[in-house]
């Protein structure tokens, strides 16, 4: 298994509080992704990174920000959590960008977030 960890694995928080989720990899892969998974929606991309300090928005980026100061860490921040952000969050890594047919993504174990 690819070396990807996510922390915390479970979190309960209140509406309006800031929340930061961490993704850590030991594979030295350049590309990192944050997804959320919700019933009926499958996996939706929030943000992704194609290098240190290089990030871009995905399909559902509103209300989320990211940072990548080191290759191995990709942080997802909910500045002011809302109940609609209750979800399971997955981090993924790959060593190739999309479009070249080599994007085998490796996923972390997921973080279950509940916003009350």
């Amino acid at each position, binding site marked *: 298994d690819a070396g990807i960890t996510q922390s915390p694995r479970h979190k309960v928080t209140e509406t309006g509080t800031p929340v930061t989720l961490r993704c850590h990899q030991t594979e030295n892969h350049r590309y990192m992704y944050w997804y959320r998974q919700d019933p009926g929606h*499958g*996996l939706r991309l929030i943000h992704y990174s194609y290098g240190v300090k290089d990030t871009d928005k995905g399909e559902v980026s509103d209300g989320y920000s990211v940072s990548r100061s080191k290759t191995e860490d990709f942080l997802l921040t909910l500045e002011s959590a809302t109940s609609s952000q209750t979800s399971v969050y997955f981090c993924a890594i790959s060593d190739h960008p999309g*479009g*070249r*047919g080599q*994007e085998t993504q490796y996923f972390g174990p997921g973080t279950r977030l509940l916003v009350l």
Partner: protein
Amino acid sequence: AQTVTQSQPEMSVQEAETVTLSCTYDTSENNYYLFWYKQPPSRQMILVIRQEAYKQQNATENRFSVNFQKAAKSFSLKISDSQLGDTAMYFCALDHSGNTPLVFGKGTRLSVIA
């Protein structure tokens, strides 16, 4: 826009039987790649199989194989000799050219029944 559609939200199959999960996609690209991912109850996403669009031969990985119909933009997954451990959500994904990330379908929940 590139899209991936999985029309079967849930399926079930008897142990040792064969089951086929459907996936259709839409892309204007000629070169692309398709994937099937498995997500068991542990929630970790696991790559099952991948197919290069330029290859006519269908990909096979042990009990897992695909039926890739490029003209019809169809990419179904066949699981032979189903096992209880195959119980999971299965996601179809498209890697279209353009330097953007994968596009996922909404998933099919497969239950293998003893």
